């Protein structure tokens, strides 16, 4: 007999909005909160580019290793990092399995020893790049990145829609959680039929709440003389010259060692 959806109700109840946004919370509460987002982007995204673009061994190893050390320096809780890494790592493991097999004839699979270096290289590059991404996301609040995106040439209308999406999604994800909890308390996930009905209820509730929220915002802004511009105050941070210099030096060393300009031995 197949397990009923009710067996997963514990998992359904477990994910609170706080755990969903654990990386953003870590970024807002961490000691690097006051640093300029451009500094952290240079460091983490520079390491990310090194991890992806340089020869995997030792490029990814050095970049990923540096990012892992910096996650500890930035005092990002290990549990937050490991929880966030679960889903992408599951993808990496699953999609690396086909690299270890070859198809000598139609519908026939055979273990391919030659696939091991490709699999190790791909998985290594991905894990290193993921560590660099986590360094950026766990130290840089998205609310500080979005208002600066127009400097990259993105139309202000698009960045403002993104900022509005960001502001509303916390409420909506919290709504999903609250509705799910109420449904679970009323045995809403006991059978397959009731589970699907409950899920439709969650999506419907979120849709209605999103539109109501948009309408209330529209009314609130209209009475304040809304002209189409949604200016928000962005925290003023000064770019630290020593931080940028140290980042440039680190990236330079990784590039030189990875491309063979300088031997570490």
């Amino acid at each position, binding site marked *: 007999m*197949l*397990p009923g959806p009710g*067996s*997963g109700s514990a998992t359904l109840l477990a*994910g609170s909005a706080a755990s*969903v946004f654990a*990386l953003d919370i870590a970024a807002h509460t961490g000691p690097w909160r006051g640093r300029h987002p451009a500094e952290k982007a240079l460091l983490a*995204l520079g390491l990310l580019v090194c*991890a992806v673009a340089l020869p995997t061994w030792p490029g990814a190893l050095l970049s990923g290793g540096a990012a892992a050390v910096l996650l500890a320096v930035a005092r990002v809780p290990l549990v937050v990092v490991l929880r966030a890494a679960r889903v*992408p790592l599951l*993808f*990496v493991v*699953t*999609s690396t*399995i*086909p690299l270890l097999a070859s*198809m*000598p004839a139609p519908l026939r699979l055979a273990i391919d020893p*030659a696939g091991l270096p490709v699999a190790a290289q*791909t998985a290594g*590059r*991905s894990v290193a*790049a*993921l560590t660099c*991404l986590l360094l950026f*996301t766990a130290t840089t609040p*998205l609310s500080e*990145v979005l208002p600066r995106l127009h400097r990259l040439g993105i*139309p202000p*209308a*698009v960045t403002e*829609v*993104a900022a*509005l*999406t*960001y*502001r*509303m*999604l916390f409420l*909506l994800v919290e*709504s999903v959680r609250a509705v*799910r909890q109420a449904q679970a308390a009323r045995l809403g*996930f006991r059978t397959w039929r009731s589970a*699907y009905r409950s*899920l*439709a*209820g969650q*999506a*419907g509730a*979120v*849709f209605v709440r*999103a*539109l109501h*929220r948009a*309408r209330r*915002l*529209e009314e609130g802004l209209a009475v304040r003389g809304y*002209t*189409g511009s*949604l200016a928000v105050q962005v925290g003023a941070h000064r770019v630290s010259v020593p931080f940028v210099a140290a980042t440039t030096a680190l990236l330079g060393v990784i590039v030189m060692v990875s491309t063979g300009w300088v031997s570490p031995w």
Partner: protein
Amino acid sequence: MHIAEGYLPPEQAAAWFVVSAPFVVHGSRALVRQVRADPESKLLLGAAGAFTFALSALKIPSVTGSSSHPTGTGLGAVLFRPPVMSVLGGIVLLFQALLLAHGGLSTLGANVFSMAIVGPWVAFGSYTMVRRAGGGMDPAVFAAAALGSLATYGVTVAQLALAFPDPTAGIVGALAKFGGIFAVTQIPLAISEGLLTVLVVRLLSRTSGDELRRLGLLRPAAEVRA
């Protein structure tokens, strides 16, 4: 199904950015025009983006006892149209990368192409075809959500096969390998998403008829045919 950060070789990751760019630029221009003509629509678009993100917080139970989340591309494309979804989908994928570490920045171009471009266009095309053929709302919405999700899965498998062709059977062999390993979860998920989306649209038709009419979803089949 998001391709994880750094999984694609750098040249392929860059190529998918180039492929996705025209669609996202076209969608952005449409969005800018819409916002210029009606500044208040910015709020509705923000709500639509947040709704699409929140859909990924829904947990669809699977036959293995674990759970998975819907892509939301089918419902999004039917409600908000594919050009807008290419931008909203791009924003949602960026947020999923930066808030949840699902997908990534280097693989954003590839993920945008599968989930914010091909998925929504296939979903919208399926919905329109079923409606034009005289089909009811339920089969049209099911086709949109299930085929949109399957198209997303198919494109992701193709992206992986192009990046890692089989040493003996080439790209076709790689398609079979990657397709086979992900089919276990993605095909049941596509069917589940189709069924769930039908229930959601039925519920919204009862509770939010005015909003669906404003978004152009609730129309008699005869009008769609015309």
